[in-house]
């Protein structure tokens, strides 16, 4: 009798146990918090075999990157063991998961790549339909196919293919290649808009940053943002002045637009009008030290000079409010004399987590809004 009840008890326990194990993995924290429990939970999930694959993948959504790495390790251990044992993975369930764009992009990609090991032809079936997928990896694959197609077509017949490819492209290298092909065919391409670069700014400075002391100093624009105000700068009175970038990648070149004031800093501000309250990313590239405020809140600061610059060098998650959002950037130049240490510039865009530019709402917003910084 007792022996007969064991399978029943196991079956009753199965779902809650599996959910508990997944919860343990999702709860890991910094400093290796929860690692011992996570090891046990992972082992338990692995012991459960292939039936746990979909629940593990589903748990990616809303989990921290740290937690998804634990979930990923459990998934890979199960999938690896199944394949080495000559068993096949649950294809139809995994395919269904890959197709579900509401799920985590990383989890969908993980499922896809394991399916691909046994069915390479799957790429031909799925990728062409993933041009606008939430996963940048799937998009990249879809765009790569269109680039090949456009090159093969050649001439004017390729233009529509290039245009289609541009709609899905989020990575700089692909966008560059596509934009060049389109421009060679005399098709206008607005890369600033495509990437979501903010190109119109107001700048005040220079303020003193000799001996790099200005990074920590709190000058007037940090205390109260007033675009009508004038300040005592390091070279005399300064006022906010408009600076616009016509660079494809939104680079605002302070050294060129104003001057490469050595040992100085500038404040730059603009307004991003959001159609709704939403979590997005501000992505910044600069070789200079910087501080960034959004709606008066310091969201990140970094004191590093001349270690290179590139698009999306820094990714800063931000919570935007509906309507006007005031962005204030402090950009610091030091006194290095080497030729490679003379850049004084920044580029800043607003995008989602996949890197797709999110254009500001069309509603006009005044730049004269005051009191944005506290």
């Amino acid at each position: 009798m007792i022996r007969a009840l064991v399978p029943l008890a196991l079956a009753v326990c199965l779902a809650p146990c599996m959910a508990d194990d997944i919860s343990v993995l999702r709860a890991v924290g910094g400093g290796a918090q929860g690692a011992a429990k996570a090891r046990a939970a992972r082992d338990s999930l692995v012991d459960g075999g292939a039936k746990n694959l979909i629940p593990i993948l589903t748990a990616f959504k809303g989990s921290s990157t740290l937690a998804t790495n634990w979930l990923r390790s459990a998934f890979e251990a199960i999938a690896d063991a199944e394949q080495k044992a000559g068993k096949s993975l649950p294809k139809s369930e995994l395919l269904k998961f890959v197709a579900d764009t509401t799920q985590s992009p990383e989890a969908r990609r993980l499922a896809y790549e394991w399916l691909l090991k046994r069915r390479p032809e799957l790429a031909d079936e799925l990728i062409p339909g993933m041009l606008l997928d939430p996963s940048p990896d799937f998009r990249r694959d879809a765009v790569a196919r269109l680039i090949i197609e456009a090159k093969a077509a050649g001439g004017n017949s390729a233009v529509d293919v290039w245009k289609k490819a541009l709609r899905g492209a989020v990575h700089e290298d692909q966008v560059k290649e596509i934009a060049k092909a389109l421009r060679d065919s005399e098709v206008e391409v607005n890369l600033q808009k495509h990437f979501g670069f903010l190109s119109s700014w107001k700048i005040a400075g220079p303020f003193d940053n000799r001996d790099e002391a200005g990074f920590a100093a709190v000058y007037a624009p940090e205390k109260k943002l007033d675009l009508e105000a004038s300040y005592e700068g390091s070279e005399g009175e300064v006022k906010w002045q408009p600076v616009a970038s016509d660079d494809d990648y939104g680079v605002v070149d302070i050294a060129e637009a104003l001057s490469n004031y050595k040992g100085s800093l500038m404040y730059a501000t603009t307004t991003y009008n959001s159609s709704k309250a939403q979590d997005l990313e501000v992505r910044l590239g600069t070789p200079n030290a910087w501080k960034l405020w959004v709606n008066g809140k310091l969201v990140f600061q970094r004191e590093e000079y001349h270690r290179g610059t590139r698009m999306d060098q820094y990714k800063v998650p931000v919570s935007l409010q509906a309507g006007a959002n005031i962005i204030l950037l402090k950009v610091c130049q030091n006194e290095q004399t080497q030729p490679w240490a003379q850049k004084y510039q920044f580029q800043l865009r607003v995008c989602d987590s996949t890197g797709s530019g999110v254009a500001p709402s069309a509603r006009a917003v005044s730049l004269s809004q005051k009191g944005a910084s506290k």
Partner: protein
Amino acid sequence: MTRLSALLTTFVVVFFNTADGGDWRQFRGNAANSVATGEKLPTELSGGSVAWKVELPGRGLSGPIAVGEQILVTASSGYTQERLHVMSFDAETGEQQWERQFKATGRTGCHEKMCVATPTPASDGERVFAFYSSNDLICTDLAGNLQWYRGLGEEFPNASNSLGMSSSPIVVEGTVVAQVESDAEAFAIGVDAETGETKWRIERPRKANWTSPAVLPAEGKRPAMVLLQSSAGLSAVDPESGKVVWEFGDGASTIPSASVVNGKIYIPSHGLTSVRLTPKGGPEEIWNASNLAPATSSPVILDGMTFTVNSAGALSAGDAESGKRLWQLRLKGPFSGTPLASNGHLFFFNERGLAFVVKPSREEGVIISELDLGETILCSPAASNNALYIRSDGHLWKFADRF
């Protein structure tokens, strides 16, 4: 001293002085000095000396390590280099035993020559500690099962370098030591190898630093120490507590790392500086040689000679006792990795993928064989069980004499 502690001390001294025929558990070997003793490596490199060659799924400046019959390698891939790989290969056959992938929690941008998988992993013989430019420190067991995960890039988001981080961790007596040093934030951390929890964290000079920790083995009653190099000099740190025991404050390079052989420390400082410990336990300079300055590769000491490669690709041999330069040999550079020394030979791999073996004496250095691998090589090689291992962005090679 009890018999047990005497035995342990003897073990530590032997383990850290050289990599004795077998494992190669971390950057520049078990002793972090690029010397492999007890190995008979193939000195006539040719196509025939390639025992196997396997494909890798991503880029890497990280070198391979060897634990038992396993060769472990890291890689990074993806457009933004966010995908982190740890792989194990059968040393005999080259067959991949397992692979685990993770997503970086820290910054992955770096100079185009570097990649996220730049630091070489380390092992304590039971676990693998994979470290990346993103400051992800990942521990798996030797079967690939995740043991703990430290997202140091997430925990300390300003401790990054826009050019990339390269310092490789080491393991000393149960502590994984990593240097995470940049212009914006800099620290060294000692992590419990078993639990992943922080044993200690100390502030370090806030300046970009690409050097890796070295080991000063235990000697007599003095326990083993970790040597942390920076632009300020060299700090000897107790691996258990993180306490700084002594400091050499005369400045040092931020790219090539110090090497320790027979209790003497060879520091890339004002050229090359040899240091020993006084009876009171502090550092004492023996000699300094400005004409033995290393560029990117770390100094190697073999058979009483120092070997350094300058930025022009010239190999300089020096007398390890006096610092006197003995000879120079023009090599085809440039080099990113550090050569491996074993059984009277030096094994070089330049950035263009040219491998060559140099037979040094006190009078001269002679190139005795060359092999063009045809791929960019930026890592340092490993030696284990009479075989030599090297990796490119695309492949992992094993070189061994055929019997």
